[in-house]
């Protein structure tokens, strides 16, 4: 199972393997990989955006809440998008510019969840000479429950 420790941080490597705007077929599933979410990954993500809610850090406190234990912030899908996709995924293409995203949240992700992603390009179009792709994503936990679903608009490198 691929984990963050093995994550290739040089996005230029494998760049030639990634689909360009011309290659991307709307509707075609993207390759994805399961990812086990860890407390460490949640805590690191929380630190990066300044989250301080103890429900993400303090197990004793989290047990007293209706969630019954630690959870991840809803926006943890920002990490999951990269942890659940392989190095040749076109979302890693250098120069990919994020134009906006929308996400719906069902249940929280939790430490030790084994998270899977179903993802595809949904649409591609040209606007003001820019090459856009719309991507469509659903994250599930190990029980098959939907954690969140979302859509994003990226401008593809030319």
């Amino acid at each position, binding site marked *: 199972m691929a984990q963050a420790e093995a994550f290739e941080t040089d996005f230029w490597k494998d760049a030639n393997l990634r689909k360009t705007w011309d290659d991307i077929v709307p509707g075609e599933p993207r390759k994805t990989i399961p990812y086990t979410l860890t407390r460490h990954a949640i805590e690191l993500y929380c630190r990066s955006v300044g989250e301080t*809610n103890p429900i993400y850090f303090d197990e004793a406190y989290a047990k007293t809440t209706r969630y019954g234990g630690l959870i991840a*912030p809803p926006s943890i899908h*920002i990490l999951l998008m990269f942890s659940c996709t392989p190095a040749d995924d076109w979302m890693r293409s250098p120069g990919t510019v994020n134009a906006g995203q929308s996400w719906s*949240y069902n249940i929280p992700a939790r430490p030790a969840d084994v998270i899977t992603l179903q993802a595809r390009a949904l649409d591609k179009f040209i606007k003001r*000479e820019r090459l856009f792709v719309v991507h469509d994503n659903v994250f599930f936990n190990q029980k098959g429950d939907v954690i969140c679903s979302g859509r994003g608009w990226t401008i593809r490198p030319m």
Partner: protein
Amino acid sequence: MTATFDNLSAGDVIDGPKFAVSRESIRLFCDASLDYNPLHLDDDYMKGNFGKTNFGGIIMHGMNNFGLISRMITDWACPAGAVHRRLETRWVKPVRPGDTIQPTGIIKAKQSTEKSRWVLIDVVVKNQAGERVATGEALVEFPRDLFCQ
């Protein structure tokens, strides 16, 4: 005062946290999100043009805005027993090291459905010059049986 569905009115404001953007904060977000796009790391790369756009240097991840807005919404909703259900965002202007950004929410509408109660919130993120860098809309559920606690 903790928000309740009944005491909320259109126009009520949610003040989000100020966030100082630096090379270090951007690098930390790379490590936390695993998004190592050179847009956020490589000054030489960012000297180039992107179609008709030249950013002039590295820029913060758009999704850092998203995470900050989401933090504002959950910090506001959770003490009220409410649940952050949706966030839609659009990036308006690049954010650079040295900027300080702050999200704000403005209650737009309330609606009850057969099984729950919902609050729509307009979201804007501004930089230290008061310029809008991101806009969006959030949806928060106020369940009839309060949820978080």
